[in-house]
């Protein structure tokens, strides 16, 4: 029976360019969200976490010419470079590469960029990353709305069990772009102040740009302390509406049930839930209903969107990595932006850092198109 693990990892965000720095900042309650006035991105001021291009170029320079790579590519390459190096992995033909993103280099569709519009093809993004590192296998790109990051972990596990790879590197990323800002603005889904997941006064999402990467592997030697085993996962569509979540949380409910069954654990084994918590009225309410139906109301939950904003195709992986580090430190970080419960079911949202022995955690995500994904992880060390 294959045991599959999440191992070395990295995060590139405005809270830091390595996982430890990012996690330390979160532990200290520091958020990457800031108010931004940039009419080139959105007519009104908005709240988001964005990475300084200057800082990014500076860090990227030792690896390559920043002029040859888009912002997203620099973020992804920097992240993956760190993870590959830390894991000391030789990129042979049993090593795969999966990329998760919703919009990739979508900003090249604008007229005044230095890159051709063909760079918007996600397979081009894949090739660029693949060729930079010399992966022997073609990059597999997953673009499945906001569940992409967790789906990539699930896909990596499947391909390894099917014998195609022994190891898979996943790199995920998305930008805060005019394209996406304007889109969510048209839905009136953006909040101009820091988002407040599950809170009574929540009024919309913030966006965030992040790249993160992780090594998925069968090998259980040479692990960092935050390594976890992927016990199980499941994905389920609501079959209800393409942009609004199911009122009964049906897809999320079924995906958690599916993940629990796949992991061969009980509901009572779950120590912590890293939920999706985007701070829209509908999403957070749907999750509360699903978690209540699942009898998970006593389990501490946080949303990390209050630190990073919604990082779209990166969110599932980014938040899973933070989950790994919380479990390593035996602390559930405060769900930033939360003050007073504003959902119809009494779920347990952590409002300050909670020290607790953590062994098994559940990560969930939901997205446009009615998709929902759940995955269950177990601490390796201790």
């Amino acid at each position, binding site marked *: 029976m294959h045991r599959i693990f999440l191992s070395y990892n990295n995060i590139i965000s405005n809270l830091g360019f390595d996982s430890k720095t990012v996690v330390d900042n979160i532990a200290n309650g520091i958020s990457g969200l800031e108010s931004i006035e940039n009419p080139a991105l959105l007519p009104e001021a908005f709240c988001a976490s964005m990475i300084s291009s200057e800082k990014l170029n500076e860090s990227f320079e030792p690896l390559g010419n920043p002029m040859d790579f888009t912002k997203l590519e620099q973020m992804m390459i920097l992240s993956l470079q760190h993870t590959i190096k830390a894991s000391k992995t030789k990129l042979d033909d049993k090593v795969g590469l999966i990329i998760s993103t919703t919009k990739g280099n979508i900003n090249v569709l604008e007229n005044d960029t230095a890159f051709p519009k063909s760079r918007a093809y996600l397979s081009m993004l894949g090739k660029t990353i693949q060729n930079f590192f010399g992966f022997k296998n073609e990059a597999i790109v997953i673009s499945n709305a906001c569940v992409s990051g967790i789906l990539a972990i699930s896909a990596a596990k499947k*391909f390894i069990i099917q*014998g195609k790879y022994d190891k898979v590197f996943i790199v995920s990323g998305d930008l805060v772009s005019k394209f996406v800002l*304007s889109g969510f603005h*048209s839905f009136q889904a953006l909040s101009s102040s820091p988002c407040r997941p599950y809170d009574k006064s929540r009024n919309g999402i913030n966006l965030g740009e992040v790249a993160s990467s992780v090594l998925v592997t069968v090998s259980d030697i040479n692990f960092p302390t935050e390594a976890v085993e992927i016990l199980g996962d499941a994905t*389920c569509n609501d079959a209800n509406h393409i*942009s609004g979540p199911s009122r009964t949380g049906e897809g999320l409910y079924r995906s958690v049930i599916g993940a629990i069954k796949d992991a061969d654990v009980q509901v009572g084994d779950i120590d912590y839930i890293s939920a999706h918590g985007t701070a829209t009225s509908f999403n957070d309410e749907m999750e509360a209903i699903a978690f209540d139906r699942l009898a998970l109301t006593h389990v501490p939950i946080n949303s990390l969107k209050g630190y990073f904003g919604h990082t779209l195709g990166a969110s599932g992986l980014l938040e899973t990595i933070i989950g790994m580090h919380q479990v390593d430190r035996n602390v559930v970080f405060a769900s930033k932006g939360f003050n007073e419960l504003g959902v119809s079911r009494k779920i347990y949202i952590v409002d300050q850092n909670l020290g607790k022995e953590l062994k098994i955690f559940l990560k969930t995500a939901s997205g446009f*198109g009615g*998709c929902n994904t759940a995955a269950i992880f177990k601490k390796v060390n201790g």
Partner: protein
Amino acid sequence: MESKYYISAYCHIKNGAISVNGIPDFKDDTEAFAPFAKKAYYALKIEHPKFFKMDNLGKLAFIAAEALLKTEYTQEIEENIALVFSNRSASLDTDRKHQASIGNMEAFYPSPAVFVYTLPNICLGEISIRHSLRSENSFFIFDRFNAEHLMLYSNSLLQEKKAEKVLCGWVDFDAEDYEAFLYLVGMEGNIENSIQEINRLYNIL
């Protein structure tokens, strides 16, 4: 590796023609996709008003799934059918439309009805709603049709009993070029779910 799974049906849509299991089902000489899709909708007796709100990729995927599943099932679908689709262009056709609506700050008119389709997996949602499929979904982006990874993924879902059947394939829409190839994998069928056979069917027309 010996495949235990089989392809029971497949469908192609290309150049104004729909065929199911290699047999022509509907043809129209219209060059443009939109009128072709409308005619196919009526010819297949689809009866799903929301069809007309879908973007091009959505309509293409929807018609392909409908043509295949209609042939395969005469009664209500009760099986757990996972959806594993892929393409090269993601949602670029609609992305360009959204981009055009925001390109100029003087004429800034982004629309939620367009923006919602700027994700390739939305078509999976449309098909799920139509056929009440509360099932596993994944959308992959490849440079060209990739039988191997579709096979690995669908075999995995079936082996792990996460699905009873898997509707897989390629649905691509870019400018006026469109192409759909969907096939249904399960425990029974005449054609082996292997890389060779999948590619053979893909190239059959």
